[in-house]
């Protein structure tokens, strides 16, 4: 071990490989083993029971690219990401800004925004199924106001998607809020005083000073959002089951349907590989954007 190799930052003459080895072996055994296995599986046709796996080469991938449902899941993911990202961050930003003024009982509001973030989607799913059904609370409110609205939104393609997005925004606004709140605490008070003396009002302050300072936070949230949207599973699976008519099918739910439900393991594996490529690609792209900003 030559002295040249010792970086300034590290303790001299210690090979740290043994220290990273346990974590490394563990990850390789669980994660990389699974990725490798999935790659292999994506080149065969197999139902999980037959002793024989039929080799189909890239056939599964060709099928994916001819599958309209695959394109539908991509479109759904993109729309889902765009809408939830914008709405959730505007709301989180506003909550953070208002809670930085001296409103009464701030802790109560903070808790109420944040609680959805820590509740399991699987626990809340039955609640949402009831809430957006004709037996739910919304329906009784509409009925008592005689608005003539029927709450059958989960049964219609467009509104089913809107509900999934609303549930997601409900769940993750707390996350945006906490991050924006922390970012806003770091804004230089003197700078804001100076701006105020220049005659900038509260709204102008928000748009011209606070929002630009929070840009780094917004980029971090975008990164979380892209990966989160690609991984989306629990909420659509438990609330709409991907329907009606694939309107809320995501890659995750489609892989589940193909692999677990219909035992098309090869086809599900090919979809999984594509999902992985998209997730890694998305993350790399976002970290590029992150470095630039």
């Amino acid at each position: 071990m030559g002295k040249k190799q010792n970086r300034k930052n590290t303790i001299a003459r210690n090979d740290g490989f043994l220290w990273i080895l346990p974590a490394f072996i563990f990850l390789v055994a669980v994660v990389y083993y699974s990725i490798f296995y999935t790659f292999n599986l994506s080149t065969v046709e197999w139902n999980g029971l037959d002793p024989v796996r039929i080799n189909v080469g890239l056939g599964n991938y060709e099928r994916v690219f001819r599958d309209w449902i695959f394109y539908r899941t991509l479109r759904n993911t993109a729309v889902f990401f765009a809408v939830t990202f914008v709405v959730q961050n505007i709301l989180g930003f506003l909550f953070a800004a208002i809670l930085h003024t001296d409103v009464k009982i701030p802790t109560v509001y903070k808790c109420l925004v944040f609680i959805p973030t820590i509740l399991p989607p699987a626990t809340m799913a039955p609640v949402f199924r009831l809430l957006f059904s004709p037996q739910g609370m919304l329906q009784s409110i509409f009925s008592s106001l005689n608005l003539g609205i029927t709450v059958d939104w989960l049964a219609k393609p467009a509104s089913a998607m809107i509900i999934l997005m609303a549930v997601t925004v409900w769940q993750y606004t707390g996350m945006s809020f906490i991050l924006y709140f922390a970012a806003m605490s770091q804004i230089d008070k003197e700078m804001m005083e100076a701006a105020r003396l220049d005659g900038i009002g509260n709204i102008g302050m928000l748009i011209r000073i606070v929002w630009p300072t929070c840009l780094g936070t917004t980029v971090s949230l975008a990164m979380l959002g892209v990966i989160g949207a690609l991984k989306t599973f629990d909420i659509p699976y438990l609330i709409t089951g991907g329907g009606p008519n694939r309107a809320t099918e995501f890659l995750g739910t489609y892989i589940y349907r193909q692999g677990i439900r219909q035992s098309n393991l090869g086809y599900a594996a090919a979809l999984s590989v594509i999902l992985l490529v998209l997730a890694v690609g998305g993350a790399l792209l976002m970290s590029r954007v992150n470095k630039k900003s």
Partner: protein
Amino acid sequence: MFDARKLSTKIGLQIILTLMIIPYMVPLVQMVLGSLGGIGIMNYKAVWDTGVVPTYFKNSILIAAGVIVLVYIFCMTAAFGFAKLHIIGKEVYFWIILVALTLPEIILLTPLFVTFQRLQMFNTLYAVILPLAALQLPFTILLARNFDEGIPTELMEAAKIDGASIWRVFRAIILPLTKPIASSIAVLTLINSWNSYLIPLIFLQTPDKQTVTLLPQFFQGEFTNDQTKILAAAVMTALPIIIVYICLQKNFEKGMSAGALK
């Protein structure tokens, strides 16, 4: 930070904030109201009398504890190595670990299903603990490495000159100093493990092994279409989490936001 000097502005902001918060309360109100439909409070008794709720909680607690222990051991040793020790090709190893950060859990299902069956680990808590810990590791290592890099190396050099072994440096300097990030990692891991649904759904098949996120499903089978009892079970699942959160509010907020900042 923002001035709301006029009384009218103050009242206006309070009203806007209250209007904004209402939609966030609606699902919680629906959950409680729904659980009190039909035979009212007796729904809770019916759910409790099935006797499964404590078992599901026990399993979730055991799994979360197992995941936290595994993540803590692997994460702290690896982060120390990456931050402070000399490793040839360090960044390559780090990159290999980081790629796993984006891994969607659904990819693990088939490979691990087949493997766990072969190893007779299917339907055991280990079958859930191992993949959940692996999914948490890349990110927690990233967090802990960044934190460790902020600890002055001189501190460790001094200890080494005094004859301390590297293991002792780790135990006497690194572990105590990394407590803040360790508590964030513990909270983050706890929430993600507690809330996980897909992995328990696939790998745990019998009610004596299943976790709280699978309770709604169990009660759908038990009380066919009796929504009120399913919601009573939801309240019973959500309440302890909310109570723990309110008690440890600061830790939760720090842990979750550590989860997003690099």
